[in-house]
């Protein structure tokens, strides 16, 4: 049965190309639809260009939302990547 799950995190670094790539690769492995929202912009987490197009920067709140059987796991994975990858401004 499809589940909805979402959680927000405050970025501690800018969301650069490399973390965007890691995030999109990870998101694509889940069957749940995963989206990222920053302010009024929303992107498909499985689209690396969409994620980069958010232009998310340090200090911004980013909401990870997922819908599907593995939604909770998908959100946890993406949050972990956001927390780690933006830390060093990779």
């Amino acid at each position: 049965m499809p589940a909805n799950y979402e959680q927000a995190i405050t970025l501690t670094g800018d969301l650069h190309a490399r973390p965007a790539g890691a995030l999109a690769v990870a998101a694509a492995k889940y069957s749940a639809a995963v989206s990222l929202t920053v302010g009024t912009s929303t992107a498909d987490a499985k689209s690396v260009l969409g994620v980069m197009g958010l232009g998310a920067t340090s200090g911004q709140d980013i909401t990870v939302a997922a819908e599907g059987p593995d939604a909770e796991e998908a959100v946890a994975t993406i949050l972990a990547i956001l927390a780690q990858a933006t830390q060093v401004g990779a």
Partner: protein
Amino acid sequence: MSLDARVGIVLVSHSAQLAEGAAALAAQISGGTVAIIPAGGTDEGQLGTSATKVQRAAELADSGAGVVILPDLGSAVLTVRALLGEAGDLPTPIELADAPFVEGVVAATVAAAAGGDIKAVLAAAEEARHARKL
């Protein structure tokens, strides 16, 4: 196709440096798990394209899941089309993507790194033309 086989990518550019640079950038963004083979310049090292280089790159890029080719402009497209039209020994499946060069290879390699099949990788490359930068 084995579970580990990833779709390979070939970058066909008039410029060897452009193909190599785009390949390096896409490899870094996608995590380095996908074969991205540059085929830039002529056989003499000048600006232009080479069917021989594209052929070799396609063979190197294939690991059993097929190959998506991204051309930069004009005669790069013609060179690949001519090659695909010959009855040569190219990997299969093989697809020519109608996509922006830099965005296309980044999107395609991320899709390939995630385990996407040739249709998914081709679609990711071609959808790149709709992505906004701002």
